[in-house]
């Protein structure tokens, strides 16, 4: 037999389907490129708009608003998640209601409600027990457009963060808590040293996704006149009518900040628990045992 003597030449399979689909994709992309080339867009004006002063302010507000809203949402979300997992039925009930409400309403509607709060509460006062006020101010002064946007975005996101944190906390097996108890750790130490660090592996990826969504979600603040990227580009185009060009400039900035956030998320995930350690899944553990 031939197999006993010389190695036989091998004829690779011709994968015609791959060639054809690749050619179709390339052709479509070329057509798209031609169409964009013929479009009535002043491409060369886009880079200029990137560096307009109002655009810089818009970029700054977008980033600051997103970071503040996400940070507040994480803090509130942890608290709501702990209430949701509490042994106290009233706390559980409250947390469920909170999540139900803030997840149920569109963010834009929440932002508009905060922005228009002065219509129903013209003054905001916090009175001290024996006369005098801690806060006594007109609502319109206290809640600027930026604050209204921050409240709307942060509270909405906090409901989602509560669910993310809860999922993370419950992903840590009860054996971990019992082991911590058995060496005399208090509940607070157990949460901080044992449960939260391991929950992070579950919490961080969806939180990163939410933050990227948040960066884009700040665009809704344009409706109430916060100078974020969309509002800034509208501002420019109202003078020169180059609507598409200014929007593209905003788009470039969004892509830049989202890309940076994605890179940050990648490193954060790596720092918080490679899969080769961390709490071992049941399957992995029994395979090792």
């Amino acid at each position, binding site marked *: 037999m031939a197999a006993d003597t010389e190695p036989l030449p091998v004829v690779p399979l011709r994968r015609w389907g791959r060639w054809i689909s690749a050619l179709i994709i390339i052709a479509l992309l070329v057509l798209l490129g031609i169409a964009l080339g013929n479009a009535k867009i002043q491409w060369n004006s886009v880079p200029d708009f990137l560096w307009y002063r109002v655009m810089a302010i818009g970029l700054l507000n977008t980033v600051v608003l997103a970071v503040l809203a996400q940070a507040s949402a994480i803090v509130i979300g942890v608290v709501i998640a702990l209430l949701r997992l509490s042994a106290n039925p009233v706390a559980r009930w409250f947390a469920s209601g909170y999540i139900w409400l803030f997840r149920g309403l569109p963010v834009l509607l929440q932002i508009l409600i905060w922005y228009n709060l002065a219509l129903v509460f013209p003054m905001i006062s916090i009175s001290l027990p024996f006369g005098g006020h801690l806060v006594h101010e007109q609502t319109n002064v206290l809640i600027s457009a930026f604050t209204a946007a921050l409240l709307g975005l942060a509270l909405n996101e906090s409901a989602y963060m509560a669910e993310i944190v809860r999922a993370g906390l419950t992903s840590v097996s009860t054996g971990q808590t019992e082991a911590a108890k058995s060496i005399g750790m208090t509940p607070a130490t157990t949460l901080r040293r044992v449960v939260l660090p391991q929950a992070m592996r579950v919490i961080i990826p969806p939180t990163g996704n939410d933050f990227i969504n948040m960066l884009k979600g700040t665009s809704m603040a344009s409706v109430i006149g916060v100078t974020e990227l969309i509002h800034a580009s509208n501002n420019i185009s109202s003078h020169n009518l180059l609507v598409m060009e200014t929007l593209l400039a905003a788009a470039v900035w969004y892509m830049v900040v989202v890309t940076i956030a994605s890179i940050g998320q990648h490193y954060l995930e790596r720092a918080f628990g490679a899969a080769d350690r961390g709490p*071992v899944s049941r399957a992995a553990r029994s395979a090792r045992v």
Partner: protein
Amino acid sequence: MSDLPLLRTVGVHKSYGGTEVLRGIDLDVAKGRVVCLLGPSGGGKSTFLRCVNHLETVDAGQIWVAGEPMGYRLRHGKLYELREREVARQRRKIGMVFQHFNLFGHRTALQNVMDGPIRVLGTPREQARAEALDLLERVGLAERTGAYPAQLSGGQQQRVAIARSLAMKPELMLFDEPTSALDPELVGDVLAVMTSLAAEGMTMLVVTHEMGFAAEAADEVVFLADGAVVETGPPSQVLGDPREDRTRQFLARVLA
């Protein structure tokens, strides 16, 4: 109180949703003694062990460890329920080894052993580290101090878990089927560590199916079935010449 044994349980009852798992357990373990709990699965052995360090609360009865009622404070003839952080203080003197090891997955072997002394006892880091290294060497894992639990075999994980408990310098050690989740060839290493611990005078309460260990290391064997103590005595008697039919049936099945 000083005349109490290190562990005394009086009439311990525990039910889960109408099913009575423990039906009045009275048990004494004197300081330095090794007591093995044997019995069929579902007989309440593990539940009883978990009641001892208050991972489970009892429905009736009391558990005294080193003269203190677990989960309570005795004042003016009444038992006042303790807060969780006060129970945590009581648990310091009781070590526990679990069937599934429950090592902290995000910490190395060394960190698993050091964390308790540092976070709970406030031991200085360098001292905790030195003691942890000693303990890991004692359980035969001096080479694997930097490994994460997932990188260790089950037997190695269980020995780290024993070291983690010992780092708290407990007066009483509880073992909840420490070798049941191990491959047969890994059981020996863990039992060897437990045997030497027993020889050094550690007070131990051990739930196990390892009859060999019970025969060799135990001062006393307690046979538990259907939530009650069926028979108690030295291993030679309970294992070699059981008085109760229930014990005899169980041993016949296990040793078959």
